[in-house]
């Protein structure tokens, strides 16, 4: 319980630090949300300076941007405690409602991309380790290096050109439908898969070189069974990598969402950053930081349960404390 409390305190501190830094950074960046909302010159045929300035000043006052930054932060924090993320400067709608509308699309894409990464990553990583040094291994490694060194937007554009234009097998639209999910998921999954496959390969090779594996094989245990056992141990550290990937996909799918016109929160956040829509950027950052912290907490808890060595160590420590007492 003490460990959990300590973790929660750490999470809270991280959350506060992250929001303070972000709150300051977005306000230090050049650009006035009032001016952006009222229209940029090329969009406005004529403008009366005095009226324009007056209206811009009114908007800044209405949004509280004329207040010192510390007061703005405290005010935002006060609303946050009441679970109010504020109102978008651009659309005038509640940020929480807009995030809630877009979050499912992002989570859908995250889950699918993660599935692609895990399935392909495990498979290629294990095959590569078992066939280390062979042509298959070289081929997999070459494919991984090629994919890892190709930016996601290039892969995405090539995929769109092939599947949407040449083959006519994919529909480019702004909908988040199941029929449109596979291509962005594949692109995103393929972009992150090489690193994962390389880690699986390295871990597997390390595990296959362990004494217990050699001993088991020399005692005549079935190779398949031994490899199965070894892969369980090799894949344990990959839980963290998988969790980090999930967090990265959820928070950083901006390029893919924009490229595939996928209406998730990444694209929403990017648009808001361009428009300096402060409440949306803050709300998005808050949700994402919370999500990442939660994922890390879950990984910590999960580790304690799935790794028998940690459980054993904990029991030993507890026993030792009791005996000492």
């Amino acid at each position, binding site marked *: 319980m003490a460990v959990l409390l300590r973790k929660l305190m750490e999470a809270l501190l991280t959350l506060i630090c992250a929001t303070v830094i972000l709150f300051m950074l977005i306000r230090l*960046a*050049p*650009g*006035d949300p009032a*001016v*952006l*909302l*009222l*229209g*940029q*010159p*090329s*969009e406005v*045929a*004529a*403008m*009366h*300076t005095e*009226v*324009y300035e007056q*209206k811009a000043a009114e908007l800044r006052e209405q949004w509280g941007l004329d207040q010192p930054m510390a007061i703005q932060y405290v005010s935002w924090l006060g609303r946050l405690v009441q679970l109010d993320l504020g109102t978008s400067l*651009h*659309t*005038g*709608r509640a940020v929480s409602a*807009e995030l809630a509308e877009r979050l499912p699309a992002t989570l859908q894409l995250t889950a699918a991309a993660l599935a*692609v990464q895990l*399935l*392909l990553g495990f*498979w290629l990583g294990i*095959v590569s380790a*078992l066939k280390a040094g062979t042509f298959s291994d070289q081929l997999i490694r070459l494919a991984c290096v090629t994919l890892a060194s190709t930016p996601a937007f290039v892969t995405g*554009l090539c995929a*769109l*050109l092939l599947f*949407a*234009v040449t083959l*006519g*097998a*994919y*529909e*480019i*639209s*702004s*909908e988040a*439908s*199941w*029929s449109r*999910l*596979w291509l962005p998921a594949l692109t995103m999954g393929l972009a992150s898969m090489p690193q994962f496959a390389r880690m699986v390969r390295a871990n597997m090779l390390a595990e296959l070189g362990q004494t217990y594996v050699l001993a088991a094989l020399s005692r005549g245990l079935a190779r398949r069974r031994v490899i199965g056992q070894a892969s369980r141990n090799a894949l344990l550290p990959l839980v963290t990598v998988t969790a980090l990937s999930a967090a990265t996909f959820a928070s950083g799918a901006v390029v893919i969402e*924009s*490229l*595939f*016109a996928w*209406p998730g929160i990444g*694209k*929403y956040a990017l*648009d808001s950053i*361009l428009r*300096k829509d402060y409440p949306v950027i803050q709300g998005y950052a808050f949700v994402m930081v919370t999500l990442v912290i939660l994922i890390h907490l879950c990984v910590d808890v999960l580790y304690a349960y799935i790794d028998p060595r940690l459980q054993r160590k904990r029991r030993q420590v507890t026993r030792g404390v009791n005996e000492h007492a």
Partner: protein
Amino acid sequence: MRRSGFIVILAGMLIMAACSSNTGAPAADTDNAQAQEQAEELVIADQQIAASLDPVEPLTTSYLVSVGAAETLFKVNADGEVDAALAASARELDPNRWEITLREEARFWSGKAIDADAVIASLERSRELDLQAQPFLDGLRLEKSDDYTIHVHTERSHVPVPLNLSYYQTAIHNAEAEHDAVESMDLTGMYQVIEFVPKQKMVLAAYEDYWGTKPTIERILHEEISDEQTRMLSVLSGRSHIALKVPVTSLAQFQDSDTAEVVASQAANTQTIYFNLARPQLADERVRQALSWAIDREELIILAAEGQSVPVTTWLGSNPAYAEASDSVYPSFSNETAEQLLDEAGWQLADDGIRYKDGLPLSVRLMTWGGDKALGEALQSQWSRVGINAEVRHGDYSLIQTARETGDWDASIEAWSTFGDPYTLLSGQYAPGSSANYGGYDDAQTNEWLAQLAESADPAEQREWALKINERVAQQAPVISLFPRPQLTAVSTKLQGFEQHFRQFENIVKANMRWEAE
């Protein structure tokens, strides 16, 4: 392991195949249904779509007018002439009064009559709540003459009221409606909004009781695809029928396409370099003139706009109504003239290829944003040929705004609309303290001519003053005009009836648009 690999691939293929079909319907039926839907629905891919439904929210009316949901009282045709639209007619009763007659048969979507009271209420609401509508309604007093006649009193004489009321910001809407949901919005256009997801899509269906020509195409889907490459691919794949804001760099993609073609038109706005006249090197008129003489606009258009525009050397030159002004000053580029002017101004060429005066180099830092990076670099190259140490800084527009606020800038590129009331346009650019007079231009002669333009009663005389001001400014070069910004639209070859227009919001959806097979 080989078997497990096969299973993984098979599973992936099955998932993909399952995902590719939305329903469990037989493939042929699904294809037919999709083909039917495709035949009826016009899909427009845009960089942005509306964020709200209220016409007084910034830019919302631009989208609503462009997709045929909202209408203005007047429209401007492709030749730059003002035609009646939601209004039946307009006539100037005296220099300070116009009479606008409305159409008795026209109705809002709710069935409410579009009478004088409704139109005045709409325009007053726009005046009160939409900052962008104010310049067009400023100095106009609206008075009901009878149920379907409005008298517009103007502070200035000979204000082109129909032109002012042709801007999308003056679109007519039911001022009593809420405009916060599809059900509560009330407009007049030939297409009625039936579904709306902010910043994602707007679905419209033909409005059955529309007063004018009923549109041939039944449905429109206006969707946001912000990535320009994806938008192009959407049209090339046949999914979208119109893609707006095609980058000039994408032209090659359409050269061999049977699916879509690019329609190019020159917008009525001029790509313009604005100078900060507070900078010592740019305060000298000869230096600014030299910078203008040193620009090879033909080459610039090839390098920065893929040849999709024409040179203009004065600001009004991109306005179709002032076509003769396009090259009235600096008719051809001349590095010799530029070098001569710089020599006269005391900027001497040194061995390093840069000109110096009192030990200081002749430097110009040009700030660009959006799609103007290539333009900035082409200018940098051309200016360096006459010994100018040019530097390009490309970034977000807010960087330019911040630089202007602090005064730390030399030059920047922007493109304002040049179509409209000449006094409003020219005073907005060149009167001291006006919003687009970034560089602080203040010329007594120009100011006097602007005052005369404002007081002028005769349209022919107004035109003359406008041309004189335009030419003087070009000669003094507080700004340098380059070319009209090219406006490229990718249009499906199946679609007929798409028209080029210098105001993009006027040309996207037309009632006579139809599919080729029909």
